[in-house]
């Protein structure tokens, strides 16, 4: 196992290097000069020069890149141009909020998507299957920020059941925390639930038509046992891989969801950084999400191997 993980980590190095080049080049796309914006109204040449020196903008581009990457290697993602806080610290402050949102959304998506997929596969081409497919298609097609707005209108404005915005840490006041987060988590979960349902359905159908399921049925196991312990366990592998791949989508969706529900998380940080032209933070965010995505994939691959006895032997 350690050899396998080591190999996978080695493969990730060139990927990360290429990502770092992309992310670094982003700032060269900029039409405006952030230094001019920082220098204020007077645009005092001495101030501009001082700021250029401070952010190493006078160095050759290769030197700038190398020092930026060098910083990342020791956990220094640069400093917010606006608040002077280290980017990693900013992200670290906001991330727990988004992780809570993402975990809640993932749990909801699994609770909705996986049973729906199993039922759709078992009742293939029957009413239940059609209903599940139509609901999944709608889940994939509904813009989640609009769903958020509509839910606020219905649940918060008209019915007054849940707060429309705000955030409370789950460690301070769990009940209030869940109350404020359940609507955004649901909004974020719809597209994931839809994809999980579709994949669960097709994975289940694949397994259901296999010989060992016919054998299980032939030896007289109850349908419940056949579906849950024989079929579902074998269909679970692709579902786990998919869940990890959906992590990126979750973060992207969180940007919009947090904006709608004014949740002070990672997504809100991204939007704020974009609007205050705090490019160091935007770069740090893209870099961090890419690293996060690669780590999630690695975990998924390891889980895949651990859960699949046929592959375990190859390690």
């Amino acid at each position: 196992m350690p050899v396998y993980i080591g190999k996978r980590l080695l493969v990730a190095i060139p990927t990360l290097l290429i990502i770092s080049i992309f992310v670094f080049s982003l700032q060269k796309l900029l039409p405006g000069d952030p230094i001019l914006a920082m220098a204020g109204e007077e645009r005092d040449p001495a101030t501009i020069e001082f700021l250029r020196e401070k952010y190493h903008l006078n160095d050759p581009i290769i030197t700038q890149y190398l020092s930026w990457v060098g910083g990342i290697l020791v956990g220094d993602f640069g400093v917010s141009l606006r608040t002077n806080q280290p980017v990693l610290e900013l992200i670290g402050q906001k991330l727990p909020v988004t992780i809570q949102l993402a975990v809640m959304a993932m749990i909801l998506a699994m609770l909705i998507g996986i049973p729906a997929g199993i039922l759709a596969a078992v009742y293939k081409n029957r009413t239940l299957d059609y209903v599940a497919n139509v609901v999944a298609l709608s889940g994939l097609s509904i813009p989640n920020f609009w769903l958020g707005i509509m839910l606020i209108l219905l649940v918060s404005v008209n019915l007054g059941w849940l707060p429309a915005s705000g955030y409370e840490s789950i460690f301070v006041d769990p009940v209030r925390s869940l109350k404020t987060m359940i609507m955004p988590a649901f909004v974020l979960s719809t597209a994931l639930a839809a994809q999980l349902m579709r994949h669960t359905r097709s994975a289940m159908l694949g397994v259901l038509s296999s010989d060992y399921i016919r054998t299980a049925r032939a030896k007289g196991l109850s349908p419940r046992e056949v579906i849950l312990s024989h079929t579902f366990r074998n269909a679970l592998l692709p579902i786990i891989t998919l869940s990890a791949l959906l992590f990126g989508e979750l973060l992207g969706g969180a940007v919009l969801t947090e904006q709608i529900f004014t949740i002070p998380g990672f997504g809100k940080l991204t939007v704020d950084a974009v609007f205050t032209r705090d490019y160091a933070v935007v770069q740090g965010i893209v870099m961090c999400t890419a690293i996060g995505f690669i780590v999630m994939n690695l975990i998924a691959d390891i889980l895949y191997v651990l859960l699949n006895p046929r592959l375990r032997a190859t390690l």
Partner: protein
Amino acid sequence: MTAIEQTAPIAKPRQKSRAWRKMRANRGSMVGMVIIAFFAIIAIAAPILPIADPIATSWSALRKAPSAAHWLGTDDLGRDILSRMIWGARASLMAGVVSVAIAVAIGVPFGLLSGYFGGWVDQVIQRVTEALLAMPFLITAIALAAFLGPSLTNAMIAIGLSAMPVFVRLTRGQVLAVKTEDYVEGARSIGLNHVDIMTRYILPNVFAPIIVQATLTVATAIIAEASLSFLGLGQQAPAPSWGSMLNTAKNFLSQAPWMAMWPGIAIFLVVIGFNLLGDGLRDALDPREA
């Protein structure tokens, strides 16, 4: 060479008509086509339709609920929402189609090269594609749009570039599957050059899954454009777009809920249209599914 070219026109129309028959039989894809056609027609016809000026404000008609004069109501500046919806369809559909065209135009050639040549060309293109795929789609699009500057054109470029790696991956996989086929070997044996083999023999045979993916990606791209416009990174005021209409609408939820309703319904319908059409195309073009 003549033998190969002679068989092609006989086989093709038959396959096309079978795919078309399967499409016709698929109710979902027909519904999708009707939805898309409806929005495409109103988007194209927007300048000649008898509707109000989408950016003309009216202080005497602020936030009026739907009525005979304003079928879908008016917004916070007294603009006719129906008219803004119709002009918004232009922005939305154009963004969806243009950004996918960008993704296909860049992604497919790289995928072709990668799959066809293999070796170091493949290695380089695949490493870059992997890196791009590791950057979450919407976050990349937001970051790119932020750095390029907010405008509809830049939003389309940002979405197109973010969606591009999927097409590299897909095309490469398809090319690998067909490049050992007899007809490709045949083309090579009669001394055709690489460009001819790639464009005349390989590309037509890998195009079906690319069309399917492109259709489904239009759906994703339309949501992405609406998201960027919602954040203020797409279409700029006062030009109408569904995403920016929703952004304004969320400030008037309790006073004028209709402002938030229509753009969302429209996005939902168009996206479901492209998803239905894409799923239908997949079923019709995929030989594996009976």
